Each structure stands twice: as C-alpha cells, then as structure tokens.
C-alpha cells in the first residue's frame, strides 16, 4: 500500500442537473445492461508522463469495474465516431446516440507539480447534459485508485447506491495436494490487480478478515503448531498474536469500530465466543454452552451479533445482543446453516446452507424470514459482503476423484439478485475471501 494516496478532491459544477434520464434499478434481477461508452482519457502531450499508456489504462480499469457488475455494457471503441481530440472540447451527442450509447464517460489527465491530476465527466447522451464530474489528484503511480474512484462515482450516479470498486480482497492462496496443502495470506485489489502474498506459507493460515478502520488483518495461524488468532499490519507485514489463551482461538472478526476482536476459544473440547478489547486487552465471554459456538459477525451498528451454533443438535444461525444476552435461533429451514455474515446495510444476513448433500449461499432477514438461496454447488461456503451490501464473494471447491485428482478451490462473486455469478481471477487456487470497506485512506 503506497503512502498518502489522495491529495484533493474537487467537485466542479459544469451545468449540473439534479436528475438524470439514465438510471439503473439494481434491485431488478437480470436487467438489460446499460450501454455506455468509456473513452480514453485525453492527454494533450504537453508534458511527458512516464506511463504513456495511462489514458487507456485508466479507461480499461473503469470499464472492467463497471462491466463486472453486469449492469453495464461498454461499447467497443472501434465503433466510436467522434475522436478524442474534439471530444475533449465537447461531445457531439448525436455521434454517441448513433452507436446506441446512453452514457458517455470522458476525461483528461495531466501532470502538475509531479502529481497526476485526472478530471472526468459523465454525460447523458439522450438528455445531452453532463450529469457528474470530478477532479482527482494523487501521485502518478496511484492511477488505479483514481480509476476505481471514478468508476464508483459513475456507479453511484446511475444506480443511487454507493460504489464498491475502491476496495481490496484478502484471501488464502492455496497450492499442492490436499494432504500437503500450502496456504498463504494474499491481498489484491478487488479487480485482481496489485496482488501480493502476505505470509510465506511456512505456517498454516486461515480465515483472514479486514479491520474496517485500519490497515490491519486478523486471521488464524498455526505458528509453532499453536493455532491462535493473530493480527497482521498490512503496511509493515508485522504479525502479532492476540492474547494469551489456554486453548485454540479461531474464527476472528473485528467489531465495527475496529477496536475489538470477536472470536471462538476452544477449551477442553468446547468452543465458545469471546470478545477482546484490543486496547485494554480485557476479554469478555459471550456464550457458555457445551455446543460449538463459532463464526460470529457483528451488525454494522455493533449492537448485535449473529453466530453459528449446534446447541439445538445441528448447525444453525443465532442472534444475540453484543453483550451476549437474548441468544435466539433465527434460521428456520431444513438443513444445516453456517458462516452467518451481517450485511453492511444492516438488513440481511448471508450464510452457507447444507441441504441434501448440496451447498448453498443465501441470505435471510435478520429475524430469519425471507430466506433466499442464490447459488447451489457441490461445495461452497463463507460469503463476504461488498462494502455496499449488494454483492457477495465466497469460495468453491471441486470434487476430487478416487486418486485425489481434480480438486481445486476458487473465489466467486454473485449479486444479491442471484445474477451475475462470476469467478475471480487469482494466480492460483483460492479460498476464505474477505472484502474490505472502501479504502478512503
């Protein structure tokens, strides 16, 4: 992660409108993607930039972000009629309507005082108006973050929802046969760029989670054959064990304020949920049953916790107050439920369900009603929400044959509507993904 990334953001009003004729309702399933033209960002060439492909690179990142949502269809630049030079002054809207583009993204970039300054505009070609505009300034090597922020702005303007492109994913990179699997923590931008391994693979590592307010990850490590919850500082790479517990700690997540870690502690065959305050190091026990209590997740307001328990005889989903009171089951259907995660919007809980030998990723309301299954597979689990609560990532494994061949693990994403299921690109096999909030420095 580079040093100070963003310098200044201005919103420049160029004949702003308070409404747009183009807009997207993202709660509809399987809608027709909005045709949009994203042009190379214009650079007048008056000063040299080391990265001469920057204008098209920025365009490519924005295009990829928007298309990954399934809501946009980016028109091939070979079809463009108006060239960049005159476009820089003003769009000839008829040219763009002719190729069926409803939205048009233009922009330019320049280097000023060794800083990269990018200005973009979003146009409605039907209404012939500019509907969004932004200027972003940062260090030149930070052009990807600018591109994601522009894509977020476009997404937000057209859907009314906050974007989720300026985010990262931490996950477990895997390789080797199942009985000798090497696992490393890895981090990447949500579009797969800037991929980096965070651990060496010497120790088994599992289930990483981002701190919502700091550059920090919590995860389970088997360092010295003692499975415990650790913290890793993303910038320094320094790892540190959390607490000094008498038994295995696992399934760690941060509280919304980033100052507490909630986790399971296994003592003499019994796993219960505990919360540790990272500042005071005070530990509070929240569950006390002979059942397995694990996979806890805070509501975004920090007032409630959802978790997985088999206290009723099978794995189900429960909710309790953040002080451990009022524990009650919310999962209602047949089968086993696991890995509950509270949506950042507060309205839904995503989960893994196992029923009749198949695995499902689904969502339910926080009282357990309205259960909706989004996807089914031989094996998949552990959904994680995008920062705007509209997309889920999770991981899948494939079945091995009798000689153990054919096994693989990969990360997938799917919309809340159940559409746009797609596989994420990672250098090797992947599991345990966790999606960060918007980076926002």
């Amino acid at each position: 992660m580079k040093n100070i990334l963003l310098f200044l953001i201005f919103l420049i009003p160029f004949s702003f409108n308070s409404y747009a004729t183009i807009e997207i309702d993202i709660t509809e399933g399987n809608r027709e993607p909005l045709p949009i033209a994203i042009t190379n960002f214009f650079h007048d060439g008056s000063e040299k930039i080391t990265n001469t492909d920057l204008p098209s690179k920025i365009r490519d990142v924005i295009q990829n972000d928007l298309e990954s949502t399934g809501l946009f269809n980016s028109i091939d630049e070979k079809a463009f009629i108006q060239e960049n030079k005159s476009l820089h002054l003003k769009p000839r809207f008829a040219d763009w309507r002719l190729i069926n583009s409803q939205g048009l993204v233009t922009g330019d970039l320049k280097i000023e005082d060794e800083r990269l300054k990018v200005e973009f505009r979003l146009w409605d070609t039907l209404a012939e108006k500019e509907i969004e505009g932004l200027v972003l300034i940062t260090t030149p090597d930070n052009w990807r973050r600018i591109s994601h922020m522009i894509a977020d702005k476009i997404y937000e303007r057209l859907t009314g929802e906050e974007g989720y492109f300026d985010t990262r994913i931490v996950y477990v990179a895997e390789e080797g046969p199942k009985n000798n699997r090497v696992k490393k923590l890895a981090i990447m931008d949500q579009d797969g760029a800037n991929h980096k391994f965070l651990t060496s693979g010497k120790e088994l590592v599992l289930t990483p989670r981002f701190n919502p307010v700091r550059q920090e990850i919590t995860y389970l490590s088997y360092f010295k054959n003692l499975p415990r919850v650790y913290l890793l500082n993303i910038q320094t790479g320094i790892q540190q064990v959390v607490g000094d517990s008498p038994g295995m700690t696992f399934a760690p997540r941060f509280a919304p304020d980033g100052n507490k870690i909630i986790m399971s502690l296994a003592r003499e065959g019994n796993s219960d949920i505990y919360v540790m305050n990272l500042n005071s190091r005070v530990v509070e026990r929240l569950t006390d049953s002979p059942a397995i209590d694990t996979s806890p997740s805070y509501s975004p307001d920090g007032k409630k916790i959802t978790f997985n328990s088999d206290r009723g005889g099978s794995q189900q989903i429960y909710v309790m107050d953040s002080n451990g009171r009022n524990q009650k089951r919310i999962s209602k259907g047949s089968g086993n439920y696991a890995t509950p995660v509270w949506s950042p919007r507060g309205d839904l809980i995503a989960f893994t369900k196992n029923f009749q030998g198949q695995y499902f990723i689904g969502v339910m309301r926080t009282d357990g009603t309205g259960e909706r299954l989004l996807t089914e597979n031989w094996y998949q689990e552990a959904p994680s929400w995008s920062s705007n609560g509209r997309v889920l990532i999770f991981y899948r494994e494939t079945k091995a044959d009798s000689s153990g061949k054919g096994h693989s693990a990969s990360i997938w994403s799917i919309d809340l509507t159940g559409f746009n299921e797609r596989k994420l690109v990672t250098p090797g096999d992947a599991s345990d993904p966790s999606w960060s909030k918007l980076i926002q420095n």
Partner: protein
Amino acid sequence: MNKVPQGLTTIYGSNVMIFKSFLRYSIILISALIIAACATVPDETVSSSSSSSSSTSSGPQVVDGVYVGSETVEMLAVDVPDRVFFAYDSFALNSNAQDTLSKQAAWLKANGSVTIAIEGHADERGTREYNLALGDRRANAAKDYLMSQGISANRITTISFGKEKPVVNASNDKAWAQNRRSVTVRTN
C-alpha cells in the same frame, strides 16, 4: 466417560482379536478360491482375471459411518494403533475406538515418561470453522478417555486441524471416513 472394568476390556479385546484373525483367514481362503476359479476360465478372459485378486476389500471398510480398516493406521508400539475414527459430525468413541485407546493407555502406563499430542481431524465436508471446533471435540474425546484410564492430563496436549490435513485426498465415503480421526503422536 464411564470407567470400563479392566477384566471386561481384556475379554472383549481378545474377542476382537479372534474376530480379526478369523477375518484374515477368511480373506486368504476366499482369495485363494477366486484365484483357483480364475485359473480355469477360458483364455480370452484370462487377461482380465488378474485384477480380481486385487486389494479391494472383501469386507466393509466403513461400518455405521466409522472406518474399520487399517490402511491408514500406524503403530505407536506393537499392537498399539495410533488412531481412532469417527462417524460423520460425531465425536463419539465406538467400541473399536475405546479398545484402541485402552491399548494406548496401557502402553503409556508402561512408558511413564512418554508425552503425547492428540490431533483431531474432520473430513472435507462442512464449513471450515465448524470443523476446527469438531476436530477439537474429537481430540478431547480421545484425551478424556485416556484420562479415564488413568493417564494424567499433563502428559497429553491436544490440537485440532479441522479439515486442513486429510490423509486421503479422494472425495468419497471411504476417504472421508479415513480422514475423520484422532491421531496420537509422541511429543518426546
């Protein structure tokens, strides 16, 4: 964990041993019959007969969901198997498991300075975190049984590997049954 009277265990143990010997002899006998039968088969099928005396078992490998074979079992000492097996989503010790653990306990008593770690494992099905907890249950079930046989707790540590360290990589019932295990490992 109930204490099993010493005498009863020995009798039961020897019954199991007799049963196992019988099974072994039956397998040899049956294999011999198959080989003899194949020798009289006409020429054109002779080439396929060589596979009929292969290592596919002639008895069930998984009984009531618990692995009963010995393919993945190693020995801590003569006649002291190093592991016990479990049914799906269970940490109950069946009679085979109790028998094995009793042998481990006897060996530990005879070798008073030995310390051990018990590793609890789950098969690949089921969510990762739940399986970490289940592995812990299985390791502690074995530890508790050893303690009930008089082994002191400070000689035993436990560790759960959840589903992270299978011994068999296939995705079928037998492989899963072989992977649901608690393994005793010497630590000194």
